[in-house]
């Protein structure tokens, strides 16, 4: 094989391998943006019809939540300021809110912020955690005014 053809092949191979790299980067270009609200491409009209939950969420008018009010139970009347840190409920001494309650587990539930909302998560407690009347099976967002029940204690978020 003569030198010219060989050199062409050599450069051609380098071009081909870069073509692969660049097309992969191109394919995931939109996906590479990881910001506070990254999107992998705006959903098309057809995708919207199939999955309505992808629609642009309307700008929320709710106010930021600042305090956690204890409504019922041994600690009734107390309020805890929320400062963006997760809060642990339970009888264990290292919990953020120590519950003197025989119906609460040592490490009962956790309230944590995510985005602009607060979520409550049961940590495998014996008697469960309730939001309104329904028992938690997974982490669930809590709105101000909803009643969270842990043992004998009832909590509410306040704006």
């Amino acid at each position, binding site marked *: *094989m003569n030198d010219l053809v060989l050199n062409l*092949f050599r450069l051609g*191979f380098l071009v081909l391998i870069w073509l692969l790299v660049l097309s992969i980067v191109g394919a995931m270009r939109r996906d590479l943006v990881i910001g506070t609200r990254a999107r992998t491409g705006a959903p098309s009209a057809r995708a919207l019809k199939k999955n309505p939950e992808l629609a642009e969420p309307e700008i929320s008018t709710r106010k930021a939540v600042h305090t956690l009010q204890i409504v019922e139970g041994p600690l009734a009347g107390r309020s805890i300021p929320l400062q963006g840190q997760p809060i642990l409920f339970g009888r264990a001494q*290292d919990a953020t809110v120590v519950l003197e309650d025989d119906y609460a587990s040592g490490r009962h539930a956790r309230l944590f912020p995510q985005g602009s909302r607060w979520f409550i998560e049961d940590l495998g407690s014996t008697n469960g955690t309730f939001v309104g009347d329904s028992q938690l099976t997974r982490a*669930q967002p809590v709105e101000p005014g909803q009643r969270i029940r842990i043992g004998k204690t009832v909590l509410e978020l306040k704006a």
Partner: protein
Amino acid sequence: MSELHTAPVPRRNLELVLLLLALSVGAAAFFLVGSSSDSDDTKDFFVQTGVLAGLALLLHIMLRIFAKYADPVILPITVALNALGLAMIHRIDLAKTTSQSMRQLLWTAIAVIIAAIVLWAIRDHRVLRRFTYIALLASIILLLLPMIPGFGVTINGARIWVRLGAFSMQPGELAKITLSIFFAGYLSSNRDLILMAGRKIGPLQLPRRRDMAPMVVAWILSIGVLVVQRDLGSSILFFGLFIVMIYVATARISWVLIGLLMVAAGGVFAATTMSHVTRRVDVWLNAFDPEIYQARGGSMQIVEGLFGMADGGLFGTGLGEGSPYRVPLANSDMIIASFGEELGLIGLTAIILLYMLLISRGLRAALGSRDTFGKLLAAGLSFTLGLQCIVIIGGVTRLIPLTGLATPFMAAGGSSLLANWIIISLLLMISHNSRRPMTGGVGPTDEIATPGATTPKAVKNV
């Protein structure tokens, strides 16, 4: 954590297009290697291209059926890297008249088929969480296997191999997967405990002493591997994996500092007292000293690799036109140097970019994963790939001391290929579960419902 709104589009057709492009890179590499040899035998070219294309399409079809929403670029990148590795191993074979490439092709087939079976059998990565402690046990057994007399063998001074008839395996390669599963399972259950307890000193929150226990176990494990099996690379890999996973789980810089202190202590101890580590460091610092260059197990390998890469320059000598076979282990440990020589800086940059893209896709799957276990597992597995690349490429380019870790998907060696393909199938599975449209009102930190949380009647705690 950012809220990600992903339009649930399968994107399998995009994967097919990229896969064809990756296979054409592979075919071109096989063709260039074949055409530079004197023989006109085209059988090898068709066997390699055909087998690789068949395996890639098999996995693609499996993904279409079982993991429709998996990331579309992971598979093409992996296939391209595997193909380039095969081509280079075949090229070294032709120069040295060995037959490593057929073995490697066979191992590729075994690895891809096992990856497909893993994909089919597991489906949902969350079931792996149930095997947290079994995974720990499996890791310990895998790491201890080569120590059994008569079963384990010592090759190149490291006792990390077992021999089964004609096959030899490195069970430690699989341990990086089982260890990732253990760390991910352990940390996803105990994250809150580690996060909330502990004293605060200045800006650092120090963990409690008993939360340190698993960290100490991981440290002892990696030091044990280093002392008993004399395998520096795996030791760095295991400990790095643990530091990263605990950092991802807790976002506490104090863990990283404690980990780095432990590495520094272990490193200084090893470099001053253990002869093989001392030699590695010496070879790294004084590579161009003629005495060290000529010594047995000296710097000849690294320096020849550096000369090869220098010879390749910007554009490389062209596949099959250079002389990478002059370097010992040119088809395994030093395969990056071989590529540097024949593809030049431009080609080597493309290869390193492929690795970077692959790892970034793995981390992206972690970011999008809806459960803590999946997040930690994906982060740990992609970091395993990343750390292997850093340790071996850094070693070959004399940035850090050279240690024997396999270049993922490229280096000749079946165990590493198998382990890395299983990692890819787990990453594909996690990315499928994170990109799949949500059913029902699933929260962003959805876990498997904790047993006991559904007890209907109130029970008094004692």
